[in-house]
C-alpha cells in the first residue's frame, strides 16, 4: 500500500512529506517506544510507529533508513523534531489512535511486521 493509504487508515495528520505520500509504497512496519528494540529487531521496515517523541526517534529512523514515522496517541513532535525529519527526507504523521489500535488497523489493511 502507499503512504496515502496508511494515512487514510489511521486518519493521520501529515506533518512533513505530504508531497510524496502517493508515490511511496510500503510493505512492513514496526511499533515500539524503545529505540534499542527497534535497532535490535528492525529489518528493512519502512514505517516506525512510536509514542516516543524526541530527536532520538528521528536519529533511529535515519540510521535504519525508515521512510515514515508515525507518532501515535496524539503525541505532537515539536518544530525541532519536524525540522530534523524534513532535512533527512523522513515523512512524519501523527494520529490520535493508540499504539495497539494503530498497529491493528494497519495490519488489517494488509501491512505486516516483516521478517525478524
Amino acid at each position, binding site marked *: 500500500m502507499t503512504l496515502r493509504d496508511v494515512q487514510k487508515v489511521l486518519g493521520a495528520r501529515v506533518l512533513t512529506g505530504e508531497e510524496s505520500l502517493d508515490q511511496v509504497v510500503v510493505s512492513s512496519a514496526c511499533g515500539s*517506544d524503545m*529505540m*534499542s528494540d527497534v535497532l535490535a529487531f528492525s529489518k528493512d521496515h519502512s514505517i516506525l510507529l512510536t509514542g516516543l517523541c524526541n530527536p532520538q526517534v528521528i536519529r533511529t529512523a535515519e540510521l535504519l533508513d525508515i521512510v515514515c514515522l508515525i507518532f501515535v496517541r496524539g503525541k505532537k513532535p515539536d518544530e525541532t523534531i519536524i525540522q530534523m525529519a524534513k532535512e533527512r527526507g523522513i515523512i512524519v504523521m501523527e494520529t490520535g489512535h493508540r499504539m495497539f489500535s494503530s498497529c491493528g488497523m494497519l495490519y488489517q489493511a494488509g501491512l505486516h511486521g516483516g521478517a525478524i
Partner: protein
Amino acid sequence: MNDAIVLKYQISPDDFTRAGEASSDVKGKLKQLGISPEAVRKVAIAMYEGEINMVIHANGGEIVVEITPAEIKMVLADVGPGIPDVEKAMKAGYSTAPDEVRNLGFGAGMGLPNMKKYTDDMKIETTIGVGTTITMLVKL
C-alpha cells in the same frame, strides 16, 4: 594500511539530543564511499548504541573510525566509571540506566548485545574509575 580513511569525533555528554550525530555522519560518509548497505547498517547501529552509552553512562569521550578496503574499525574510548562486570553488562536486558534514560527510548539493556550482534568482532577493555574502550570490527 596506506589507503585507510580515519574519522574522529568528540562525543559531548551534555546534550542527549545530539547523541547519534557522529554515527549519522559516519553513515553518510560510508554511503558516499560506496560501502555495501548491509555493512553501513551494521556500523550505523553498533556505533549509535556505543555513542549513546558514552553519553548516558560515561560522560562522553572520543570515537575513531578507520576505514580500509577490508574492514571498518570503530574505537570508542571514554574516561567514564568503567564497567564492573562485563559479562553481566553484555546480557540482554541488563541495565543500570536511570528512568530518565528509559523515558528517552534507551536503557533497555540491549545496547551492548546489539553492538555484538551487528559486528564481526568486539572487544571491551575497561578499568573501574579510569574508563572503557570498546573496539568493534565490521568486515567488508
